[in-house]
């Protein structure tokens, strides 16, 4: 009976491509009474460094992983158990866990087709996407300018426990077609609509970040029946201000240093931008056709004077579905002031102290909102 109260804390899987993580630092001592969502330890993956938050409440009885350890997904990091469990029982639990633990085989994943990513043709584009979960509810995640499906690294899996969650690479991004036909918000919205129809999605909870928010909002305005619920995270399309210096810098830079400085504008805590993230963005930008695509898309939603061109704020009130806006107050790309003075049918959530990539920086808060 007592054994069932022992909980293993294991290496999380943040995104499809994550196979292992590096333990950086424990943020709590053994013996700490953890509440759900407490910061427990820092983990670095090949994509990003992040803080692992407690998924279970209870007392941290053991720290198994040491700083600098590189461990596969699912490996034992620590043990949570109430005080009445004896040390011997914990030892026995660890022995059993280690005996039964099988690290994931990266090779096996590949045989299923490039590790969980799938592809389809829609509106003249080849689009890559990933799908997680099997629930009846459908959620579609739309990333922003310069991003890709991995922007939902900490979002997609948690939401997939009771829903089917799709994240796509927009045209010009990720592994989707780089040659843009219509780079306007409406043009991209029509492509996402074609994507949904290709997958026979009648209606979905749309979650859009930044430019992806403007695209999701446009879809809700063009075909409201397709959208059961709308979440706009640090969204474009709600006001004229945008950090055009960031956008233009992102398009033009090919230097690691500059790219790092630019990416640091996306988050409130600059330490989150590690070398791998910088390399990933440069690799993306050095792919043939990407810079031209980014340029075309940027002119589709930003005027020559550097302000946003497609502002849909005045049309929000007519949307029939629940609409929510989520914003980090330290957003340096699109000001969180755009969340103010929205019509009463919009639920507003400001998250204090986070930047533009709030779904990465404050993953558990954003996930809790999205799941509610």
């Amino acid at each position, binding site marked *: 009976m007592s054994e069932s109260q022992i909980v293993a804390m294991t290496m999380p899987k943040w995104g499809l491509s994550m196979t292992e993580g590096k333990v950086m630092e424990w943020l709590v001592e053994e013996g700490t009474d953890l509440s759900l969502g407490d910061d427990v330890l820092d983990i670095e993956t090949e994509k990003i460094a992040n803080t692992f938050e407690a998924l279970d409440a209870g007392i941290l009885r053991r720290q198994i992983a040491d700083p600098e350890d590189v461990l596969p997904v699912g490996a034992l990091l620590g043990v949570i158990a109430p005080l009445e469990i004896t040390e011997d029982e914990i030892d026995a639990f660890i022995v059993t866990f280690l005996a039964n633990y099988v690290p994931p085989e990266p090779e096996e*994943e590949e045989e299923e087709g*490039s*590790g*969980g990513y799938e592809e389809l043709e829609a509106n003249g584009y080849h689009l890559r996407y990933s799908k997680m979960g099997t629930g009846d509810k459908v959620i579609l995640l739309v990333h922003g300018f310069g991003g890709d499906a991995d922007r939902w690294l900490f979002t997609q899996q948690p939401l997939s426990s009771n829903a089917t969650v799709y994240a796509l690479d927009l045209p010009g991004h990720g*592994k989707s077609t*780089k040659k843009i036909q219509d780079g306007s918000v409406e043009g991209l919205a029509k492509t996402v609509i074609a994507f949904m129809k290709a997958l026979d999605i009648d209606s979905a909870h749309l979650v859009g970040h930044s430019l992806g928010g403007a695209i999701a909002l446009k879809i809700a305005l063009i075909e409201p029946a397709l959208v059961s619920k709308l979440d706009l995270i640090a969204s474009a399309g709600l006001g004229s201000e945008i950090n055009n210096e960031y956008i233009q810098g992102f398009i033009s830079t*090919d230097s690691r240093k500059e790219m790092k400085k630019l990416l640091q504008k996306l988050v409130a805590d600059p330490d989150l931008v590690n070398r791998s993230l910088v390399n990933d963005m440069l*690799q993306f930008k050095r*792919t*043939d056709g990407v810079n031209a695509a980014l340029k075309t898309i940027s002119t589709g939603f930003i005027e020559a004077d550097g302000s946003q061109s497609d502002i849909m704020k005045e049309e929000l009130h007519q949307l029939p579905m629940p609409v929510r806006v989520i914003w980090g107050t330290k957003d340096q790309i699109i000001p969180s002031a755009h969340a103010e003075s929205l019509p009463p049918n919009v639920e507003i959530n400001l998250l204090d102290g986070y930047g533009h990539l709030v779904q990465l920086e404050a993953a558990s808060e954003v996930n809790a909102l999205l799941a509610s």
Partner: protein
Amino acid sequence: MARKITYQQAINEALDQEMARDKSVIIMGEDVAGGSGGDGEMDAWGGVLGVTKGLWGKYGDRVMDTPISEAGYVGAAVGAATAGLRPVCELMFIDFMGVCFDQIYNQAAKFRYMFGGKAETPIVIRTMYGAGFRAAAQHSQCLYNMFTAVPGLKVVIPSSPYDVKGLLIQAMRDNDPVIFCEHKVLYTLEGDVPEESYTIPFGEANIVREGNDVTIVTVGRMVHQAMEAATTLAKEGVSCEVVDLRTTSPLDEETILESVENTGRLVVVDESTPRCSIATDISAIVAQKAFGSLEAPIEMVTAPHTPVPFNGTLEDQYVPSPGKIADAVKIVMGYKA
């Protein structure tokens, strides 16, 4: 997760994609096509190790077999480059550069300068280098340092399948002569390589491992030896930063100096012989420009000053090993002023 292919396949894919994109790209070299007049395999050797296999069938006359006369066909390729083509010329082994060195260092490397920028020579010379292949003294040398010494040449030495594709595409698009050095032992190495075309700029070193105690600067195959040493040393509590130069000309001095300023210690690993080499060059630059940051004398791990031995046991001893690199790191770590 990206698709995994070998270093050799990545070279082939880069050539294939760039030939499809740009009609001015041609391939010249010994046995690069086949040309025996037979069917299938008979007519598609694709070079001595099959790197260009399949391209002759796809691009026909744009893949040209040449006589065994490097002076002749490298010269022809240099001329073709000045006249508007983008030849990718295969000099089977870097050891053979002696027979066509005039065409490379005194012709191709000089045109832009001597004609006031009016002439460009966008030629890529692909060549195999390095020991460990039991190919003896005349087919195993590591001579990229000689090309690096010549102003007007760019020298690229890729260490991974990802890098070799992006750097080769960059080389073909570059308007200057590029000596592209492929280590034959790396040909079977597998790694993640995107299917799309992409480039990697010259002069940007890659920090393949971050660390705080000692900087290991290296290039080509030695990156893997250094990484193996770094993994072993991490277990002993020594944190190594491994810098892969990727290109020795242009050279990313900034990354090297920043890393040494952070760690205070430098080990240079170079497969060449020890005199007048990349190892001595990097050591000189760091000694001159980051002297104040150094907490220990610089260590160099290189081959000995001898020809590459044919005897397998000796050849294995000749090439810098992870063990020798780890020993050098321990020397700089243990230094007391």
